C-alpha cells in the first residue's frame, strides 16, 4: 500500500467552526449583556455575574440530564414532580426528627428512585412513548407529594441549610460552584466517555445501536436515574432558597427545562446537540430576566421572548437543514418504497 489513503486528522474549516449554533447563542448572550449595561451603570461588574445566577440556577440542574434524555430521543416531563416529591420528603423527614444531612440524603435517594421507576417503566414497556410514561408518573409523584404534605408548607430548617441557596465561598455563590461542577461532569460524560457515545448512538439510531451490541436498557436506566438525582439537587437548592417547601413547588419546571434544552440546539428527534448549547440557553434566559427587571418590564414578557426564541430557533434550524436537502417534502432519502435510496453520492460510487 503506497502511503495512507484515508486521513485521520479532523477536517477543520473556519466557516464550519463559526456556523455552530453555540456561536449564535453566545452572540445573543453578549448582546443581552451589552443592553443590560447600557440600562444600568452598575450592571457591568464581577459581582453581577457571580450573584445573578443564584436566581435561576436551581432549575438549571434539570437542564443537564434533560439534555441527555432528549439527545437519547426521549422526553421526561416528570422532573418537576420529582423535585416536589423529594423536597417534600426531605422537609417532612426533617420535621419528623431526622437529622438534616440524612434528610438531604433521603431527598436524593427518593429523587433517584423516581428516575429509577421511570427507567423501569420505559425499558419494560417499550411500546409506550416516554411522554406517556412520564406524564403518568408526573401526576403520581406530585400526587404522592400532596398525600404526604397535603396543602401545608414545611420549613424551619437549620440555619446552615440556607447556605445552599444563599451562601458563598469567598465571592462565589455555593450554588454556582456546585452547578459548575455538575455541568463539567455532565459535559465530560456526554462528550468524552463511551457512555456519552452510546447516548448519542441510541438517539440517532436505536436499532443499529441494538445490533451493535449496545445495552440500551442500562443506558436508559442510568440516564433516568441521573435525571432523578439532579432533580434532587434542584429540590435541595430550591428548598434552601425558599426556606420552606410545598407540594406544588417546581410546577412547570419540566417544560421550562425542555425549552432551554431545545433552545440550546438539541433536536427532539434525537442524536443531535451538545452540552454547551443548553448551558448557554440557561444563562441567556437568566440574564435576560435580570435585564428585564432593570427596566421594570414585567417578567411575563420573558415568557413571550422564550417562546419566540424557541420557535425562531427551530425555524432557523429547519431552514438550515432544508437548504441542504432540497425536495424535502418527498425527499428521496425518505423514499417511499424503501427500495432504491439514491442517497449514495455518484462521485464516491464509481471507481
Amino acid at each position, binding site marked *: 500500500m503506497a502511503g495512507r489513503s484515508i486521513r485521520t486528522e479532523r477536517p477543520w474549516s473556519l466557516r464550519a467552526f463559526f456556523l455552530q449554533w453555540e456561536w449564535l447563542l453566545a452572540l445573543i448572550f453578549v448582546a443581552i449583556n451589552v443592553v443590560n449595561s447600557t440600562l444600568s451603570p452598575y450592571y457591568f461588574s464581577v459581582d453581577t455575574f457571580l450573584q445573578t445566577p443564584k436566581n435561576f440556577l436551581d432549575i438549571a440542574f434539570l437542564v443537564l440530564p434533560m439534555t441527555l434524555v432528549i439527545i437519547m430521543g426521549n422526553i421526561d416531563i416528570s422532573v418537576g414532580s420529582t423535585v416536589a416529591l423529594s423536597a417534600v420528603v426531605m422537609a417532612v423527614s426533617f420535621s419528623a426528627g431526622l437529622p438534616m444531612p440524612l434528610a438531604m440524603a433521603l431527598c436524593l435517594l427518593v429523587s433517584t428512585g423516581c428516575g429509577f421507576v421511570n427507567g423501569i417503566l420505559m425499558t419494560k414497556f417499550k411500546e*409506550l412513548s416516554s411522554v406517556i410514561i412520564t*406524564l*403518568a408518573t408526573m401526576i403520581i409523584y406530585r*400526587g404522592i407529594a*400532596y398525600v404526604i404534605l397535603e396543602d401545608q408548607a414545611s420549613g424551619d430548617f437549620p440555619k446552615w441549610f440556607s447556605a445552599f441557596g444563599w451562601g458563598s465561598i469567598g465571592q462565589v455563590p455555593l450554588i454556582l460552584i456546585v452547578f459548575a461542577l455538575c455541568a463539567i461532569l455532565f459535559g465530560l460524560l456526554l462528550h468524552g466517555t463511551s457512555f456519552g457515545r452510546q447516548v448519542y448512538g441510541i438517539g440517532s439510531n436505536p436499532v443499529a445501536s441494538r445490533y451493535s451490541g449496545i445495552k440500551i436498557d442500562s443506558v436508559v436506566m442510568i440516564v433516568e436515574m441521573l435525571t432523578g438525582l439532579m432533580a434532587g439537587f434542584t429540590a435541595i437548592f430550591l428548598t434552601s432558597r425558599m426556606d420552606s417547601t410545598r407540594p406544588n413547588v417546581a410546577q412547570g419546571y419540566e417544560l421550562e427545562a425542555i425549552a432551554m434544552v431545545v433552545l440550546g440546539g438539541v433536536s427532539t428527534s434525537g442524536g443531535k446537540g451538545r452540552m454547551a448549547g443548553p448551558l448557554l440557553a440557561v444563562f441567556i434566559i437568566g440574564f435576560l430576566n435580570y435585564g428585564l427587571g432593570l427596566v421594570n418590564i414585567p417578567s*411575563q*414578557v420573558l415568557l*413571550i421572548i422564550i417562546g419566540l426564541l424557541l420557535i425562531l430557533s427551530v425555524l432557523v434550524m*429547519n431552514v438550515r437543514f432544508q437548504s441542504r436537502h432540497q425536495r424535502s417534502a418527498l425527499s428521496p432519502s425518505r423514499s417511499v418504497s424503501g427500495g432504491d435510496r439514491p442517497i449514495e453520492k455518484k462521485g464516491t460510487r464509481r471507481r
Partner: protein
Amino acid sequence: MTDELRASFRTGRRPVRFGESFRELGLLVFIVVVCGVVQLRNPNFLTLSNLRDLFANTAILSILAVGMMMVLLTRGIDLSIGATIALSGMVSALTVQAIPTIPPVVSVLEGMIVGLAVGAAIGMLVAKFDVLPIIATLGFMNVIRGLTYLISNGAWVSSYQMSAGFQRIASGSLFGVSNLIVIAVVIYIVFGYFINHTRTGRQIYAVGSNPEAADIAGLSRRRVVWLVYAAMGTLAGLAGVLWVSKFASAQGDTAVGYELDVIAATVLGGVSISGGSGRVSGLILGSVLFGVLDNALPLVNVSPFWQEAIQGTVILAAVVINVLVKRNGQRYALRKRVI
C-alpha cells in the same frame, strides 16, 4: 377460481375490532365498579343533582379532549391549550368588563376566534414549516401565557366585574340541563359526525396511521394537520370562555398545566399518542372516568389530596394493561401460524 385459491384468502372468521372494543369495555366495567363501590358507601353519589354536577364539571375537559384526540391522531401533541384557555378567557372577560352589555353569544364567539387564531398559527408552523408539534406548541404556550399577563397587566378580572349574562354562559341551563353539558353534547355530536362520517375526518386517521402513504395517495396531509390544530385552538378558545364564566374569574395563570390533564384523559380514553388509533366513544369513557374519580373520591371520604396520586395510577395502569393485552394478542396470533 379454484378451491385452492379460496383457501388462502377466505378467513373463515370475521375479525372484529377486538382490541378497541375490549379496551372500552374494560373502561366501562371499571367505571361501573367504581360507581358501584362509591354508591354503596355514599348513597348521595348516584343522585340526579350529583350526576349533573359531575357531568358539568367534566364538560370542559371532555370538550378539550375531542380536540386533543384529533391532534394525537395525526401523531402530534398540543401543549399550548392551557395558555390558550387563559388568553381567550382573559380577552372575553376584559371585553365584558369594558362593555357589560355585550351579548353572551358574542363573548363565546370572541373566545373561539382568539383560539382559532392561536391554533391556526400553530398549525402553520407544524404543517407548513415542519416544526415538531411539541416544540411549536411549547413555544406558543410561553408566548400566549405572556400575552395574557400583558393584556391584563397582571390583574384579575373577578366576578363583580362580569355581567350576569356572561356568568350565565356556564351557570345557566337549558331545559334543566346545564349549559356546559349542552355545549359538550353539541360538540360531541358535531365532531363525532365530522370524525366518523366525513372524508376530511377520516383523513385525520389516515394521515396519522401512515403519513407517507397519505402523501402517495394524494391526500393533502398538510391541510389536515393544519386543520386539527386550528380546531384544537378553537375548542380551547371556547373552553376558555366557559372556564372564566364558570369560575367567575379570569387570571393570568388560569389553567396552568391543564394541557397535561387533557392529554391524560385522552390517553385514558384509548387514543394512541403515536397516531392513527382512538375513538370518540373511548374518549367519552376516558373523560367520564376522569370526572368520576374527581367527583366520587370526596364523597367516600378519600382526602382530596389523594386524588392526583389515584388519577395518575389509574392512567398508568390503563396504558400498561393496554400494552399487556396487545402483547398477549400477538402471542395468540403467533400460535395460529403454521410454523
